[in-house]
């Protein structure tokens, strides 16, 4: 391939004399402004639905349906939240259900993932290689493949409409196992040996030495499992029929499915409430998200 001729690089002459090394892919000043402008537009478009949801939750039905739409609620009200939580549907219970389910999944996934990830990285056991391959495979393959048999299994266990049914199938979290395993492979062996020489048993080595070092990865697993459990919709829709066992996302979506009495404001209030915990978690633990997503992509 031909080297680009120097004359074709006007920025070379400009940038060379003493300028600091440029990180940007300088397409020229104008290009840069256009690109950042487009980027800002895209970011606004990406956030617009969330803005629309939150402001919509403050609008009464007639304001929500006004033509042209009110870009800012003309008479903001919390009436929709009152209707949602003190109306005919047990929305508060749905919220608590979601909290229990996501919390249970997160706690369980952290326990099984950190143990199994540690075992995969640092211990020997029969079938270790096979287990790891299967973990990778199920991490990638869509879970919906096994949806039907899993639901049939729940019927055998009589776990429909129960917390077990909502939680237990998600306690083995392949992504979490993978993440911890990647992290645990980097543990210095001398540290583990030293702890053992000091008389620590296997359990103590795990809980006092390994877990504290793995904290960032464990945190990432907890957060991803919690968010995943909170947002898991299809499964919750399938195995819950009783109204008081519904989770918040499923309950709110059922408010809407009766389209004749579809109250936009109440639906948006429900959606906002289903979103708020995720927003808080994301803002509080943004670093973990970045770490989790990037680490998950590292090929092992």
């Amino acid at each position: 391939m031909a080297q680009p001729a120097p004359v074709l690089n006007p920025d070379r002459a400009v940038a060379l004399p003493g300028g600091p090394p440029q990180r940007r892919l300088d397409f020229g000043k104008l290009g840069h402004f256009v690109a950042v402008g487009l980027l800002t537009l895209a970011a606004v478009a990406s956030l617009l639905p969330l803005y629309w949801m939150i402001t919509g939750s403050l609008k009464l039905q007639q304001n929500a349906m006004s033509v042209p739409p009110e870009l800012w609620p003309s008479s903001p009200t919390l009436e929709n939240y009152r209707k949602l939580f003190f109306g005919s549907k047990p929305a508060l219970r749905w919220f608590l259900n979601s909290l229990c389910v996501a919390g249970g999944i997160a706690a369980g996934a952290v326990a099984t993932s950190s143990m199994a990830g540690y075992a995969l990285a640092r211990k020997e056991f029969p079938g270790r290689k096979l287990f790891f391959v299967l973990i990778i495979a199920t991490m990638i393959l869509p879970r919906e493949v096994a949806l039907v048999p899993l639901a049939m299994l729940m019927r055998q266990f009589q776990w429909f409409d129960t917390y077990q049914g909502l939680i237990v199938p998600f306690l083995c979290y392949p992504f979490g196992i993978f993440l911890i395993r990647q992290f645990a492979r980097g543990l210095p062996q001398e540290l583990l040996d030293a702890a053992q020489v000091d008389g620590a048993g296997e359990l103590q080595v795990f809980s006092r030495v390994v877990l504290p070092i793995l904290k960032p990865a464990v945190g990432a697993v907890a957060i991803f499992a919690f968010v995943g459990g909170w947002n898991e919709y299809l499964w919750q829709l399938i195995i819950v029929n009783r109204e008081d066992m519904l989770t918040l996302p499923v309950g709110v979506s059922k408010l809407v499915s009766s389209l004749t009495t579809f109250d936009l404001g109440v639906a948006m209030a429900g959606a906002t409430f289903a979103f708020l915990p995720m927003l808080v978690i994301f803002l509080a633990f943004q670093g973990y998200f970045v770490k989790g997503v990037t680490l998950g992509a590292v090929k092992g």
Partner: protein
Amino acid sequence: MRELPEARVTLAPVEAKAPGLRARRLLAGVLGRLYRDRWGLFFAAPALVLFSLFILYPLAQGLLLSFFEAGLSQDRRFVGLANFARLMGDSAFLQAVRNTGALVLGVAPLSTLLGLAISLVVFPLSQRAQGFFRLAFYLPGVASGVVLSLVWLWIYQPTYGLLNHLLGLAGGPRIAWLGSSEWALPSLGLVVLTWILGQPVLLMLAGLGTISPELMEAAHLDGAGPAARLWRITLPLLRPTLLFVLVTQTIAVMQTVVVVIVMTRGGPANATQTFVYRIYETAFDFYQFGYASAMGTVLFLFAAAITLVQFRLLGRELEG
């Protein structure tokens, strides 16, 4: 020659004793190994049990069930490949496969490319600006599909929806986004795109961060312009990330179902049927478990094939 019979003599008694001895030795070996690996087994056990029961067993059961006719009653009937034969002539299913294919081909490459473009523009900006844009593109992804679907249902509403209003300001026509068979699928595609765009942006920003500035500077001093640096340095170094993103995005889009359940229920006229939505409807509205499992098996094969092909590419990437 003389030693041969002797050898036979010494061999015979051992062989006669062998079965019991060998079994005992085998047992001792297995027990010894289990004892040696007891801590590995201990730590792996909870995950192993849960994995076998709730992931592996249903998977195997699903493959098996594809060859049966099974419904709500306990008895099932072996039907061989009949379920698969029926799939070939099931117009709603075939439509769902086509729609899912269209979504995958439309959304996955687009989100990968958009993610690349966005991260290229965002990367040189200040830390604070990077943080804002990361937030802006990742936030829809932490909202659940239901939450987004509910909002978009309203935004797409033809008479008082936001989208038609904004289009109207620009002199555009009023469109029945979810009500017309030509627009419904692209409309869902847009929702899915905004939902999954965060991962590519995050990953590629991280990928760009691993490219050494010295390398860029050296290329710059050697007279490589921005385009040359993008093509010769940035893109080749980002290739593993790009491929990984493409694989995961492809699989994610293949599973599109929540937006369908909340927004269109597969309509109008099957225009938004998707693979997983067919499975869901067939199993949990029509209670045809065997038939739904056959669909699941086909989905499994599709996903496995795509993953294998992409892994081959990734593998070659790692070797080269």
